[in-house]
């Protein structure tokens, strides 16, 4: 561990220090205190001098007094001997509240993986046809399936399965052409995984391929956050580390596998008295997994029959298909493709078409012979996740013109209808997810998620995740605010503007009526106190600075100018409906999002939040394989606009920095938001 940074060391040790900027010494979220060795029981040898030289960048985040007290940035300080480190509350990576809920959408059942149960005539001395040929003959006779192949690992099971099942078997077929597994007896349920690999968060949906039900949902932070919060820094990690790509690919796979395992553990195998089918136990959010026949119930309990290890039915073996969506860079890393081409102009991809890769080749632990279907990329920065969004929301099947905005670290926009669709990506930046903001944090316990400012007194009220009541109804000690998350940041931004604490230009109004407004003594930068130190868990005033406001303006301007240039390219002055996707979208206040000029003018009741549409798209492709071809069609037939190459992008972007806009007006939104009476 000698010479590694404290952040890297903490990852290796399984501790968690927040490193939003990916260790680039920019965000200052990883402040830690080097303790005297004696306190930690490591003896006097563990000392400050073991933390490596002080770096110039640390100065911006650590005051001289704090430096004297032992504070360092964990991404700058290095391990050079024994160290005892105290990680303050605000520097700990909090357990995230990730919203990757399942949205109810209609899907026609037609999975790529289907089960066929057949009864074979047992062989005899007169009829000694091979087991595989015997199975194929019957599958053709009963189900009309021809030209079948079988995966080697499935073939290894065939003889035993046929005999254990007394010549009644259930064959698992992929695309009606390849046998992936053979189960003795009758089996009715196969399962699949739909996965959404986002830059910041990942989710898997475990679905029953027969009933279409989502049996379990799991989510986690993307483990690659340790290599950089945005995709660009992850590409850079690959460029600067010899085995960087393989390291990240393995981390990503391990993350997916851990979610899959957790999802499987939610569906408990049932004992001998099992019933067929899935019965949801809503009280515990656990579903029961039936066996395919009481005869084989013994197979279900691990370790019950060690000599039958091969044929033992594990939950994993029932996971027979998987689909994945993700942005282009996550796509490339997961598949092990060089992501450099994505990160440098002219921003190409290794492959635009969808992929079917054997899960075992990727190291993903589902059924031994199962495939992972990776949805197609559209263009350099418009990835399979955006194709997933289109697949779920189907703008290409409707007459009305829809604008779909997937807000993430990188925003993706789609505009169009059944005649034409155009998409683009816009550099939203991580501000709306809580990064690059002085007291920004992810949506986790202690994060301020809603804000209201009294326009007269400029008093602030807010709600913290994990507390039911608003701040004004709690005693200060109960509040425990740690930072501000994305929805809180947008709320705060809108409230600062509505109460005229900031002007339309985003600058703090020179006429302030509250002591909450002040200037930093050293830098002279203006700031506004959102929560006083005694209302926080971090013991410091939570402020929003002039610089923070600028970051939010950059994000909203990126989205608005992207929407506007797409509309111009399409030749439309107004859109019929706006859908906001992304986990962030679920929590946002409609009034706040419209009033700051982030969206083009639209009937506010036609603005809706569609949740994790990319993940829904993965589910659509899992449960209906025709949609996989449709996804390829979408990827090839959606036009792509590169915003920064548009001649007047700079002008449009600059004008959109203004709140709500320097020139454009929003009559529909204004009419809706105007206080009545």
């Amino acid at each position, binding site marked *: 561990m000698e010479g590694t940074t404290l952040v890297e060391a903490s990852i290796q040790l399984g501790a968690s220090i927040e490193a939003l900027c990916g260790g*680039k*010494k*920019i965000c200052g979220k990883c402040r830690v205190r080097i303790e005297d060795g004696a306190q930690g029981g490591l003896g006097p040898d563990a000392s400050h001098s073991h933390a490596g030289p002080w*770096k*110039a*960048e640390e100065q911006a985040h650590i005051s001289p007094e704090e430096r004297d007290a032992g504070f360092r940035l964990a991404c700058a300080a290095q391990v050079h001997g024994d160290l005892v480190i105290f990680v303050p509350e605000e520097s700990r990576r909090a357990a995230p509240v990730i919203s990757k809920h399942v949205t109810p959408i209609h899907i026609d059942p037609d999975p790529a993986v289907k089960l066929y149960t057949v009864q074979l005539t047992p062989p005899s001395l007169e009829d000694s046809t091979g087991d595989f040929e015997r199975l194929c003959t019957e599958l053709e006779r009963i189900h009309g399936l021809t030209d079948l192949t079988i995966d080697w690992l499935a073939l290894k099971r065939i003889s035993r399965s046929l005999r254990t099942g007394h010549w009644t078997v259930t064959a698992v077929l992929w695309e009606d052409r390849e046998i992936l597994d053979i189960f003795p007896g009758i089996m009715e349920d196969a399962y699949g995984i739909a996965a959404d690999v986002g830059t910041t968060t990942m989710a898997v949906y475990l679905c029953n391929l027969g009933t279409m039900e989502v049996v379990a949902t799991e989510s986690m932070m993307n483990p690659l956050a340790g290599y*950089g919060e945005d995709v*660009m*820094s992850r*590409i*850079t990690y690959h*460029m*600067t580390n010899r085995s960087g790509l393989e390291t990240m690919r393995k981390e990503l796979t391990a993350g997916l596998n851990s979610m899959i395992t957790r999802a499987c553990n939610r569906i408990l195998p049932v004992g001998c008295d099992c019933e067929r089918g899935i019965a949801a136990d809503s009280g515990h959010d656990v579903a029961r997994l039936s066996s395919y026949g009481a005869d084989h119930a013994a197979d279900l309990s691990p370790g019950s029959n060690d000599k039958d290890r091969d044929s033992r039915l594990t939950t994993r073996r029932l996971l027979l298909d998987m689909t994945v969506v993700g942005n282009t860079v996550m796509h490339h890393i997961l598949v092990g493709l060089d992501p*450099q081409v994505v*990160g*440098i*102009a002219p921003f190409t991809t290794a492959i635009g078409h969808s992929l079917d890769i054997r899960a075992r080749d990727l190291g993903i632990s589902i059924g031994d012979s199962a495939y992972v279907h990776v949805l197609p990329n559209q263009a350099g920065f418009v990835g399979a996740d955006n194709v997933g969004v289109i697949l779920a929301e189907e703008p290409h099947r409707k007459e009305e013109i829809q604008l779909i905005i997937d807000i993430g670290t990188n925003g993706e926009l789609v505009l169009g209808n059944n005649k034409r669709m155009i998409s683009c990506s816009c550099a939203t930046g991580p501000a709306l997810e809580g990064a690059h903001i002085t007291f920004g944090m992810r949506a986790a316990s202690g994060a301020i998620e809603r804000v209201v400012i009294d326009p007269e007194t400029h008093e602030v009220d807010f709600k913290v995740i994990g507390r039911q009541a608003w701040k004004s109804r709690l005693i200060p000690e109960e509040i425990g605010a740690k930072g501000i998350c994305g929805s809180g940041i947008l709320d705060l931004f809108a409230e600062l503007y509505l109460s005229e604490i900031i002007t339309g*230009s*985003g*600058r*703090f109004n020179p006429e302030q009526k509250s002591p909450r407004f002040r200037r930093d003594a050293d*830098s*002279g*930068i*203006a700031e506004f106190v959102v929560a006083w130190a005694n209302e926080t868990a971090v013991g410091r005033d939570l402020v929003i*600075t*002039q*610089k923070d*406001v*600028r970051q939010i*303006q950059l994000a909203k301007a990126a989205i608005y100018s992207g929407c506007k240039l797409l509309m111009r390219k399409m030749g439309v002055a107004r859109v019929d409906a706006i859908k906001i996707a992304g986990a962030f979208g679920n929590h946002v206040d409609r009034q706040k999002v419209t009033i700051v000029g982030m969206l083009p003018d639209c009937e506010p009741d036609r603005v809706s939040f569609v949740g994790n549409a990319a993940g829904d798209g993965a589910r659509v492709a899992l449960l209906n394989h025709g949609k996989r071809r449709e996804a390829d069609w979408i990827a090839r037939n959606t036009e792509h606009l*590169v915003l*920064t*190459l548009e001649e007047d992008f*700079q002008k449009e*972007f*600059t*004008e959109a*920095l*203004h709140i709500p806009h*320097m020139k454009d007006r929003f009559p529909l939104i204004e009419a809706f938001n105007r206080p009545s009476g």
Partner: protein
Amino acid sequence: MDSDMKRKEILEGLSRAVVEYQEDRAVELAQRALDEGMDAFDAIMNGLAAGMKTVGELYDRHEYFVPEILMCADALYCGLDILKPHIRKEQADASQGQVVIGTVQGDVHDIGKNLVKMMLEVAGFTVHDLGRDVPVSRFLEELERTGSDIVALSSMMTTTMMRVKGAISEIRESNPAVSIMIGGAPVTREVADLFGSDGFAESAGNAVQEAMRLMSQMRGDAAALSAR
């Protein structure tokens, strides 16, 4: 005394017109400066450019943002258009220095680079802008053609920042005399040192100071050399 008072008043007015981005006011005061027989170069440097310096400071404190800078620049150029034809030739030749600027290959972001270019021009530098997605060979050609003192490289993405290092060593090799400064969102002082860059600009306002520093350093070097 009286003309001194007038001069001071006009210079302050020009400066304020730029800071408050009032184009009409800049035009009016520039014209008045000429009518009063003031030195045009004086009005530009101590009026308009002084105002832009204040704008740079406001920008560094995040009080002014991209739109304000552009509007201030508009006001500045309005005044400049009137005054420029009246500066004397020897004044016009007294450029602060020449800079070749561009966004490195693979990067298509140029708003930040455009701001730096403008601030440098306002401060009296002659700037040759190569635009964005510029291969190293183009930088070298332009340096050769113009005999510039400084080359300024911008990269806005960590991926293209990685290319800056190679660009620096190529430029060093073929043109050891030129000073190199780099900047852009992902670039830090440490990166600049690591890549062997002579200068680093954290912001558009800071870029001018850094360019000035590099110029005086080069002049110092030249003076030391000739003294030997």
